[in-house]
């Protein structure tokens, strides 16, 4: 073995022979599990309406006002949308006109009226022009630069093609989508959706009314009247209509006026507040970090308090090597504690959530592995940061306080609901707390206006980018510790 291997071996022996330190690391792992347990048993949503699931397995919001007729086989529908007006609550009793950028009015072909069913739609929006959307998560922009108000949707088998036109003479194809498994009979017609309006740190339900003209249908539409109704009125992602409003449609002389609320979109945290996340199951990460910080800082500061550091450095005069050996041992132990704790906590938390009827935003197996490894890496890196602070301060209270303030305090501040988004986003970018991004499993959608803050589970940095911020701090602190360890007398 090399001399460095001997130093690492010695530091490992040192670590494992102090019962309190081993207990502290075991406690870190247990805290992850205990918080998962608490999160699991404290929430009970048995009997809550099911969350609509989209074609790709993700949770969706599927609530809108639908004016429809069955379409059995191929066909087409054309209409103009000369007006789309939205209203936002000015106070609980009154509405005022406002802009809802993703308010939608247009034509749709949908497998059925069941929430979560496949669809393709072409629409005008409150602020984003003509769009063609399908499968809840797909969004295609229509022709830019022209105020296209004429829309057309054609069905041919399972292929749905959307067109837009400004004058009725020149049509631009926006896109074609295939609705796999679409049966012969689908529901087609007009729709209006009006997602919640983002106002400051919250959202409030909006309602929109669209005027439709020149409605023409071709092909195999069922004869008879148009049927109006709210899709997904009971679904958990639907906040309902503002006071004194409701979904409705009227027809007079070929002109339709449709009022609707809700959205057809992937569910985000704000629209599905009852949904849990992997990050919430791993809330114990911050507590585990505190345990790791205390153990890591004490493992070096106690050496200064007792004078043991002189024995250590007399046995290993290569001071950088001693510091590196300590970092390797602590980092490895913290990594294992995080890995074991998170690997137990995640399935346990998911199981309890399922048993209690709590919907958890689904993640792929790869994401689950990434989150568990992320927690382990977070604990390991913070242990190196705390070790370095211990070597710099040579004082337990100073080292522990500094690292807790640097790492855990930003997380706690980010967890305050009324923290301004600018502040929490800043904290999640520049402080070591940015590394909590490893817990995120939610992704923001450009076509859903919502509140994407760390509090809601959305971090400004990608998981490993956030982790890299912490790693930068840890490496910097380790370098400072190494320099000071060399310069100062032991």
């Amino acid at each position: 073995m090399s001399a460095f291997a001997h130093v690492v071996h010695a530091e490992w022996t040192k670590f494992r022979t102090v019962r309190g330190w081993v207990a502290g690391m075991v406690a870190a792992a247990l805290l992850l599990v205990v918080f998962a347990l608490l999160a699991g048993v404290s929430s009970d949503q048995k009997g809550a309406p099911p969350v609509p699931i989209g074609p790709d397995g993700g949770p969706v919001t599927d609530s809108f006002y639908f004016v429809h007729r069955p379409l059995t086989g191929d066909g087409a529908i054309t209409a103009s949308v000369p007006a789309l007006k939205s209203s936002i609550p000015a106070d609980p009793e009154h509405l005022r006109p406002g802009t809802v950028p993703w308010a939608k009015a247009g034509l749709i072909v949908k497998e059925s009226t069941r929430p979560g069913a496949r669809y393709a739609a072409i629409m005008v929006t409150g602020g984003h022009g003509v769009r063609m959307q399908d499968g809840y998560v797909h969004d295609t922009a229509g022709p830019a630069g022209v105020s296209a108000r004429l829309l057309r949707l054609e069905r041919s088998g399972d292929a749905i093609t959307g067109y837009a036109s400004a004058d009725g003479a020149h049509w631009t194809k926006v896109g074609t989508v295939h609705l796999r498994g679409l049966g012969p009979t689908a529901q087609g017609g007009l729709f209006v959706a009006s997602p919640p309006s983002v106002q400051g740190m919250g959202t409030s339900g909006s309602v929109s009314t669209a005027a439709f003209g020149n409605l023409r249908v071709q092909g195999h539409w069922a004869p008879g009247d148009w049927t109006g109704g709210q899709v997904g009125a009971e679904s958990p992602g639907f906040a309902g209509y503002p006071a004194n409003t409701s979904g409705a449609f009227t027809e007079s002389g070929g002109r339709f006026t449709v009022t609707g609320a809700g959205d057809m979109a992937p569910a985000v945290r704000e629209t599905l507040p009852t949904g849990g996340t992997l990050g919430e199951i791993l809330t114990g990460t911050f507590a585990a970090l505190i345990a790791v910080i205390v153990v890591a800082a004490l493992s070096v500061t106690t050496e200064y308090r007792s004078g043991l550091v002189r024995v250590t450095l007399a046995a290993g005069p290569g001071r950088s090597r001693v510091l590196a050996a300590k970092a390797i041992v602590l980092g490895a132990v913290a990594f294992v504690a995080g890995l074991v704790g998170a690997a137990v906590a995640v399935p346990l938390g998911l199981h309890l959530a399922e048993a209690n009827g709590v919907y958890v935003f689904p993640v792929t197996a790869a994401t689950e592995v990434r989150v568990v490894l992320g927690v382990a890496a977070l604990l390991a890196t913070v242990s190196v940061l705390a070790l370095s602070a211990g070597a710099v301060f040579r004082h337990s209270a100073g080292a522990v306080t500094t690292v807790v303030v640097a790492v855990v305090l930003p997380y706690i501040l980010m967890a305050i609901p009324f923290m301004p988004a600018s502040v929490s986003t800043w904290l999640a970018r520049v402080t070591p707390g940015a590394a909590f991004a490893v817990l995120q499993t939610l992704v923001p959608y450009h076509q859903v206006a919502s509140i994407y803050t760390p509090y809601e589970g959305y971090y400004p940095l990608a998981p490993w980018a956030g982790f890299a911020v912490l790693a930068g701090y840890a490496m910097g602190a380790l370098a400072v510790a190494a320099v000071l360890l060399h310069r100062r007398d032991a």
Partner: protein
Amino acid sequence: MPCVRPCQIPGSSRVAAAATGPEPGAAYNLRHESNCELALSAPGIVVAGLRKRYGTVLALDGMSFSVRPGQVTGFVGPNGAGKSTTMRVILGLDAVEEGTALIGGLPYRGLRHPLHHVGSLLDAAAPHPGRSGRNHLLWLAHSQGLDVRRVDRVIEQAGLAPAARRKAGGYSLGMRQRLGIAAALLGDPPVVLLDEPFNGMDPDGIVWMRGLLRSLASEGRAVLVSSHLMGEMQHTADHLVVAGRGRAIADASVAELIAAASRGNGATLEDVYLRLTREAVEFRTGTSTEDRK
């Protein structure tokens, strides 16, 4: 680092007028001696011209002496004379502004597995209170590539067996000294350096310690033992280095010191020591290096 090292050849010490010199510091201050080569290749410790300052306090001011193999060298002097600082410098723990401290001709920081070359006891072993004495020795052994057999051997040698598996936090000072001795002997080193090993020892322990130090020297090891009490050294050391005001103010064999003492009006060894260190004692009223702990 000075190109000419003031150094002391083992055995060439002087004690002229130890009891009568009006300026003990000047009388015993070592000057540049010839034949440094011999000292550099010697297996013991060679300390040459150490200077170190803590703020405005000059802790070491030209400390020079050497420690020969096969002898117990007592390192005495009042608190604040620079004994502990010198020992930390020898072990590469504290840096100096000037001077060198070599072990077998090498600086401590150049030693790969240093406990095979030098065993040391500082701060009464300073074990972590939550770790057993045996585990304290075990990690030290691992750091030197040694195994548990060596640990059990030195536990026996230091008389630590009954307490070895107890947490060091419950040890008496005497027990911690024994643990420190065990640690110092772990690598079976040719050089042993002990800072105040008699502190906290009960009478039995003191007798045991004396015997141990004598036997280490008789095995051919170079043994440096610091103490602030002359009495402890009288029956233990072959050679004495008296520190005062940051330098060696006397460097002589015990026999020579006693001979010098008997020449001056029936003074005792204690008197010699007190006279030698008188100015250093006054010096102690400033910030003492011992207080840093």
